[in-house]
């Protein structure tokens, strides 16, 4: 199939359609709105599929919850503030062990912030999409093609693990155009293919119940153990990452999504200068590629985490690296994006020993801090 030029938001919507999404519920918010608008245009063309603009993100996530109870392929999309409003509903979906897909096209925060690209929902998405013990499977594309592929796959993953799958991208990926090869059309489920827990009317079988409530601690503990066991399987099976030139890397860049691809440009520039730089780009943010990072940390001299935020994935990196290599962080916030030249400046700085860096050092534009190992010990 020939490549076509697609805008990220619309490509994700088209990929979901091809994956057989049957019900989309959402609410407009920049820089995600084209996704909703695409669904508004396209969904009505397919009989039996549903597009509905909800009155709010709170309603949208609960419409998804309802549709998911029926064993229907369903999704929503939003951007940072809208996602916050979904956290209660997402926690219910997790507690009820239902599949659902959510797209977050992140913008600058906190609060209303602005509509520029950002990665400041990393914590919200990977750590606590609401209250309670659970994680969503979080996938972070760095190109429009990858956004399409991951979205397409996300529905299967959601159904396989009865979990929420998040496509976590930033406004840059939502807004940019790139050549894309679209996946084939998938049929929607027939009645017979519906999962055996789905609420479809108690015809010829006992009635079914879907709930996240269990008043006995023993009972709720069982739910949680089931959930944790499933998440452990996800951690075994679904860790994804990309590596570039890590074999001989003396400095390892770690970055995801848009930041991951920007780091590639910096990496190439560094290599041209003879600097041995490598890149680990986590694709699954949860589960995080901690094992691989642990291994690489043992082989490199230094780690530089680059994010479009104040250092969120950084914590996962610190936990995975376990002191095997010093870690530095460079990030920008509020919709500012570290560009290759800034990253190369950081690389130059770090590759010119000896390193000695105050904890919070705001020089020039960016926000960098030395985050681990020796530095922690030397703090007041």
């Amino acid at each position, binding site marked *: 199939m020939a490549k076509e030029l697609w805008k990220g938001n619309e490509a994700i919507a088209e990929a979901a359609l091809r994956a057989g999404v049957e019900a989309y519920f959402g609410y407009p918010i920049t820089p995600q709105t084209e996704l909703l608008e695409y669904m508004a245009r396209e969904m009505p063309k397919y009989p039996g599929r549903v597009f509905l603009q909800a009155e709010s993100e709170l309603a949208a996530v609960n419409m998804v919850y309802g549709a998911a109870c029926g064993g229907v392929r369903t999704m929503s999309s939003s951007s940072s503030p809208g996602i916050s409003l979904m956290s209660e509903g997402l926690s219910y979906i997790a507690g009820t062990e239902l599949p659902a897909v959510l797209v977050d096209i992140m913008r600058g925060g906190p609060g209303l912030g602005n509509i520029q690209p950002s990665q400041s929902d990393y914590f919200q998405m990977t750590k606590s999409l609401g209250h309670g013990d659970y994680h969503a499977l979080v996938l972070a594309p760095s190109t429009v093609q990858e956004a399409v592929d991951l979205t397409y796959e996300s529905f299967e993953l959601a159904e396989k693990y009865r979990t929420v799958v998040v496509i976590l991208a930033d406004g*840059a990926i939502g807004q*940019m155009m790139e050549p894309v090869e679209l996946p084939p059309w998938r049929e929607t489920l027939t009645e017979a293919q519906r999962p055996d827990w789905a609420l479809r009317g108690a015809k010829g079988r006992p009635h079914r119940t879907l709930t996240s409530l269990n008043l006995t601690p023993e009972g709720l503990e069982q739910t949680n153990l089931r959930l944790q066991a499933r998440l452990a399987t996800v951690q075994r099976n679904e860790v994804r990452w990309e590596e570039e030139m890590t074999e001989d890397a003396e400095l390892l860049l770690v970055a995801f999504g848009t930041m991951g691809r920007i780091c590639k440009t910096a990496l190439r520039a560094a290599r041209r200068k003879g600097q041995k730089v490598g890149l680990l780009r986590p694709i699954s943010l949860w589960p995080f590629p901690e094992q691989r990072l642990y291994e690489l940390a043992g082989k490199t001299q230094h780690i530089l985490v680059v994010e479009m935020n104040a250092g969120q994935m950084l914590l996962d990196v610190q936990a995975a690296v376990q002191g095997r290599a010093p870690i530095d962080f460079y990030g920008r916030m509020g919709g500012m994006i570290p560009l290759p030249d800034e990253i190369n400046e950081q690389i130059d700085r770090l590759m010119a020993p000896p390193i000695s860096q105050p904890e919070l050092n705001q020089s020039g534009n960016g926000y960098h801090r030395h985050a681990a190992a020796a530095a922690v010990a030397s703090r007041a």
Partner: protein
Amino acid sequence: MHEEIIISGFGGQGALFAGQLLAYAGMDSGKHVTWIPSYGPEMRGGTAHCTVVISDEPIGSPMVRNPSAVIALNLPSLDKYEGLVKPGGVLVYNSSLIERTVARDDIRVTPAPANAISMEETAPLLEGKPGDARLANVVMLGALVQATGMLPLEAIEAALAAHLPQRHRRWLGPNGHALRRGASIAEAVAL
């Protein structure tokens, strides 16, 4: 090859569409491409610009600070990007709207009277009314493509034919003319 192009102008001058044409043409020529729009703080109006990267290699950063080529459709765009073009790069500016000249001598500069050419090319289809500036973006694109040689002009023409919205179909001919006239200006400058 690896080209990083910024196209910038007032909202409504067609900077974003010109960038898309370039991206389509690049893609259809078998290159890797990215196109990314950039929002100013203005909610409506204001300036609009986009960054296009065309490369033989998979593209890392779709954003650039120092483009290898710039189209400035208005004065604020020239002011903003003049200093950012990479040494050895190309800068095409709309001399219909910009009266000043460009000081840098480490880049190739092409002034193109894009509004004027557009007026001439659009008048015939506007039934007696004077022409308008709607093709200025394509004039500039012609000049840029010619000045850099990044893609054959035919690729842009093909992209135009494929992607001009249905409701603007009757403008295909004038668009082609505008493109060629832009190219010929650059040719002249290069000589």
